[in-house]
């Protein structure tokens, strides 16, 4: 599992990016939606842009470059330009710390709730 940080490091409506090399080959973004934490691959599947820089609306993040929207729960894009889902990852909160368990496929991961 990858250590992300403390829950208070990820404020409501914000995202943090975990750079590649800390237990994952690619950067991962962790979002706080009304107290629920979601983790997805940080790089838009359409072109090189960081989804952690994107616009968060409900459970959807809009890529800052071309406005592709991804569902944080499933990783699915809502429409073009992106046609490929991003991977979702399980978020685990244990001993007051936030971790991500990296998924190896493009299956939707179940999400633990941050208390």
């Amino acid at each position, binding site marked *: 599992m990858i250590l992300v940080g403390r829950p208070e490091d990820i404020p409501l409506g914000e995202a943090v990016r975990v750079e590649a090399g800390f237990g994952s080959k690619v950067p991962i973004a962790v979002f706080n939606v009304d107290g629920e934490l979601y983790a997805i691959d940080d790089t838009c599947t359409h072109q090189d842009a960081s989804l952690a*820089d994107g*616009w968060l609306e409900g459970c959807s993040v809009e890529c*800052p*470059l*071309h406005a592709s929207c991804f569902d944080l729960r499933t990783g699915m894009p809502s429409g073009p*330009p992106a*046609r490929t889902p991003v991977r979702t990852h399980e978020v685990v909160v244990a001993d007051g710390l936030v971790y991500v368990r990296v998924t190896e496929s493009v299956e939707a991961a179940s999400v633990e709730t941050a208390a």
Partner: protein
Amino acid sequence: MRTIAVIGGSLAGISAARALREHGFDGRVVVVGAEDRLPYDRPPLSKEFLAGKAGVDDLALTTDADAGLDLDWVLGEAAAGLAPRGRSVVLASGREIVADGVVLATGARARPFPGDRISGVHTLRSLDDAVALREDLLAGGRLVVIGAGFIGAEVASTARDLGVEVTVIESDPLPLGGVLGPELAAVCTALHEDNGVRLITGTAVTGLAGAGRVREVRLAGGRTVAADAVVAGIGAIPNIEWLAGSGVDHDHRGVWTDAGGATNIPQVVAAGDCTFSYCPYSGIELRQEHWTNALQQPAAAAATLLGKSAIPARPTAPYFWSDQYGARLQFAGHRRPDDDVEIVEGGLDSRRFVAGYRRGGELVAVFAMNQPKLFGKWRRQLVAPAPAAARLS
């Protein structure tokens, strides 16, 4: 309607075809493309593809999902004429496609540098263009880029990364000044010299010289610049000549449409780079040669053709981006020369900032360098300028 012909096989064409299906059209959709390949994405041609970081497969715009749309592709065939009232399209081969509705999505082509064709001189619009240019760049040597617009700057940046010696020549004293205004244009222009690219401004190119292959670029005033390859990035020309005699209103600026892509002919709509359209956000007619417009405008045009309402309640601000010298530039809105500019985030010196353009106190446009997240925040605060009286003449 039983058959709709989409004329144009690039981003606007595939977007129109998808939109027709999304709106429930279940008749025949014929997509005609002048290039002999399925739609591909052009922005990477000056960046990742030219750099060798992306291949042909990475550029594909169509996916497995498009296979289910049941589109009839006619590729490698340019349209040559549209019958009056838009009931049929004649292709260059003489083949005729009869249709109840037509979407014009023929895009634009790169403006060639005037004069005789000479080897080693490039423009960049198609995949083949990019392949040929990359071949010349990999041979090393000296590249001269004519025009310091976004395409010119992106090519210069990519060539520099490939280790090529680059000179950029721009006739305007201040490149991008017309787009961004003097202060911000100066910041972008500085990126060239920051990255070891020589920039010559306020100087026109008068000719290219070389025996069989370009050897030098001649400048007004008698100076010459040695060149092993040349790229002209001096604008684009909408592909509308084939519409002569069709009755569709158009001129050198493009096909005239309203905000919903309607032309003056009921069964004919248009979208993308070939259009000169009323923009509800800007309050004027303009040609938006931007990727996002080619992605979004076809949805409105398809709705218009099918007799559905096409105008979104809230006008979308025009948007474009450019990646050059490791910097990400983003612009949204509509700027006029007399708008006030202020830096609203960061600072110019840090090359990380957001600038706002105000008109009568309202935020009408926003420009960012290396601030995608904050750009997204400010972009959502844009206010459409009060519509100006605009009339096509």
